[in-house]
């Protein structure tokens, strides 16, 4: 995009934001727009970033890519792949339209999160527009930077409620030299025990997933991905295959599995009934099996058990019960995706006030939002 074109886009964003500020009506920022189901719903008018697209800077030896918010995720991944690099947090796509701005604002990460960290860890800098129409840049394109508060890292997970992301610089990583996946059958408790033990050793664990029934004596399928230096992956594979009685998967099968898990295309995800909700539990490490009543028996565990997916009724009683269970273990629950018959106005997230010690953080979040967005341009309440 030429600088003049770029400036034109920025000016049109500014115009839209200032008009919204004037009329005190929020704007719902939309990238690919393929994700309206995630977070609390709203029906405000849209600010679309789709046209503001293009990779602005990519130097493989710097491990950084900078692109406009509307750039398609698949375009970024294609360009990185040519240089044998990747977005290490494996953002889910779901649909062709996923944009960089949406990826960052959604803040979701895929299977590798357990080994490489979350999306926020990879954000180096962002150019944003606040609710006053100010064009601001925070962070930068270098790995180490402690000048000022790290405002660009407030964007991941903000779901368009703090500011409009115009451009972002994201750290990328080389693709691992080798990668392989192994699979075995075991109970949920045994899988959790074994994953946490393995994670405490210098093994190249990259991702894990256990799929089965949430019953103590039921055997499920544990899949583990190993990635890193060839020698390390090979050695770990030999040792884990023998200690877990596991088998190596064929490369194609393995790739399809992890990609379907990330995109929630595995049968357990796609069989969501019209009146059901897919719940996501996030839990501290080493949290054991949970007593889950009123839920479907099927359960998927990712991130060595720190992320769990389950289906159940969509009513508040079920959600409240799950929130209670998660919170008793120091975690939280979320209505991730709802069936087509479910009331779309449902509150999707664990409220801040229900999270431990977050009550005192509420006024901070409120003041923070007010300082970036005094007129409530981004007050779409997609987040609690």
């Amino acid at each position, binding site marked *: 995009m030429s600088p003049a074109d770029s400036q034109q886009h920025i000016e049109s964003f500014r115009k839209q934001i200032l008009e919204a500020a004037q009329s005190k009506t929020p704007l719902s920022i939309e990238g690919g727009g393929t994700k309206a189901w995630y977070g609390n719903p709203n029906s405000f008018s849209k600010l679309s970033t789709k046209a503001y697209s293009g990779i602005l800077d990519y130097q493989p030896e*710097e491990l950084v890519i900078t692109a406009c918010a509307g750039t398609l995720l698949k375009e970024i991944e294609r360009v990185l792949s040519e240089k044998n690099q990747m977005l290490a947090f494996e953002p889910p796509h779901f649909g062709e339209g996923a944009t960089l701005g949406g990826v960052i604002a959604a803040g979701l990460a895929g299977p590798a999160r357990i080994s490489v960290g979350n999306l926020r860890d990879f954000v180096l800098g962002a150019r944003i527009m606040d609710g006053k129409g100010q064009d601001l840049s925070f962070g930068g394109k*270098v790995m180490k930077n402690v000048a000022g508060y790290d405002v660009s890292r407030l964007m991941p997970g903000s779901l368009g409620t703090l500011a409009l992301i115009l451009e972002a610089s994201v750290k990328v*990583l080389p693709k691992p030299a080798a990668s392989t996946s192994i699979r075995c059958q075991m109970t949920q408790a045994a899988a959790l025990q074994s994953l946490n033990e393995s994670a405490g050793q210098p093994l190249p664990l990259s991702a894990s997933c256990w799929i089965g029934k949430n019953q103590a004596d039921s055997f499920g399928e544990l899949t583990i991905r190993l990635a890193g230096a060839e020698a390390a992956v090979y050695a770990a594979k030999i040792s884990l295959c023998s200690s877990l009685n596991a088998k190596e998967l064929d490369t194609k099968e393995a790739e399809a599995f992890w990609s379907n898990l990330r995109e929630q295309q595995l049968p357990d995800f796609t069989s969501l009934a019209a009146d059901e909700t897919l719940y996501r539990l996030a839990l501290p490490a080493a949290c054991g099996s949970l007593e889950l009543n009123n839920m479907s028996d099927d359960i998927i565990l990712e991130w060595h058990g720190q992320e769990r997916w389950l289906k159940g009724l969509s009513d508040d009683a079920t959600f409240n019960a799950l929130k209670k269970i998660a919170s008793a273990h120091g975690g939280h629950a979320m209505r991730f995706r709802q069936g087509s018959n479910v009331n779309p106005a449902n509150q999707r997230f664990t409220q801040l006030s229900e999270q431990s010690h977050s009550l*005192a953080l509420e006024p*901070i979040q409120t003041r923070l939002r007010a300082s970036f967005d005094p007129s409530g341009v981004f007050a779409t309440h997609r987040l609690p």
Partner: protein
Amino acid sequence: MVAPPPDLAIISALQTKLVAALRPILPEDGLLWEPEDTIPYECDGLAAYRRMPLAVALPETEAQVAQILKICHAMNIPVVPRGSGTGLSGGAMPISQGLVLSLAKLKKIVSIDPFTRTAVVQPGVRNLAISEAVAHLGLYYAPDPSSQIACSIGGNVNENSGGVHCLKYGLTLHNVLRVRAVLMNGEIVEFGGLAPDAPGLDLMSVMIGSEGMLAVVTEVTVKLVPKPKLARVIMASFDDIEKGGNAVAAIIAAGIIPAGLEMMDKATTRAVEEFVHAGYDLDAEAILLCESDGTPEEVAEEIERMTEVLKKAGASGIQISRDEAERLKFWSGRKNAFPAAGRLAADYYCMDGTIPRRHIATLLKRIQGMEKKYGLGCLNVFHAGDGNMHPLILFNGADQDEWHRAEDFGSEILEACVELGGTITGEHGVGIEKINTMCIQFGEGERESFWGVKNAFDPDKLLNPDKAIPTLNRCAEYGRMRVSKGILPHPELERF
């Protein structure tokens, strides 16, 4: 630094009031106000800037921290939190009408969980003490600032500290799960959590690296990582600084993330060789140290690949450490570069800017030009893998003109860093040292937003005010780290 002369009568009355209010809640030795007791707190590692506080409080519990803050909040007295005082940007420098709140006595390791690979520690725990406490489990805490034997985890959180290993293992931000802290009004809050990705804005990201301006850290949950089985280092020489700089970029472009990637220029190599006798190539224009860690198989594979890249990049000599003793010998010069600089000149001034890796050679060449322009020498020894530069400008502090030239030299380097796409501080923080150069990097809108963040946490602006974020109209000239008469703050620490 020229501060307006404080009104002694007002200060003394305020001190009496503050001491009277705090005494009942602190143990006998937990409150200092006589000058002979508070003088050790008059500065941090940036010794050129000193100020005496009203008093120094040394609480032993989080509850006491909360009470102290409540009292100061009610009395409108500013508070400067302090860890070990090893900061290099004056972040913990006292305010003459304020209290220094030392967290040094909160130094318990609360719990260690080998199964979840986490440790809960109080803020005064030294960085290295965490790794020592978990060594028997085959685990360690990865971020390793060179001040790690002294600096506290609370200070690390507030400076987002890193070290040689953060190229591969990340900075403090990447290795902390949860931070518990007290707000200026005495309320206890928690940032982050043990469960991943809670909904709501991620306030931990702004808390980390906030230089004691948002909340007082009282407990930190850190991630522990398995200790690699083996580490080896390659020492490569280059007859041209450009080739050396390009080799750094080439290693990363080859898809390798070394455990450490550090560079020294010729002037540094010569200065340290005399000091440590590590066997460095004295004719080399640049020396690179590239470390690999992991399983023996991984290390062998990575060392081989790095050697190939370095040869292709034009290395004139390559040595690979054969054992742990040799590895440490190769590192010894790098670790002693600062004291070696101290032997070359009466004073030196340490800068801390970060640039994109591909511009390393450009910046080094520009610095050579600046040496001529300002008539002063400069040693370059730095975290090349991160593009984090630490030019050491040599000067004689007895000569005012030399000091001014050194200051200008330093500012020109930082301006060059910003121009090349980098930043004015990679790891030492802004503190009072770089408050002016913040104006080079950030415009009015960004600075206003920073104040918005500050205001969200500390609306009365009582927590470490006057640091890090310049006010919109501030232009006053502040100085920077200056090592006077060869007297180094914290001489016992390794210098990276």
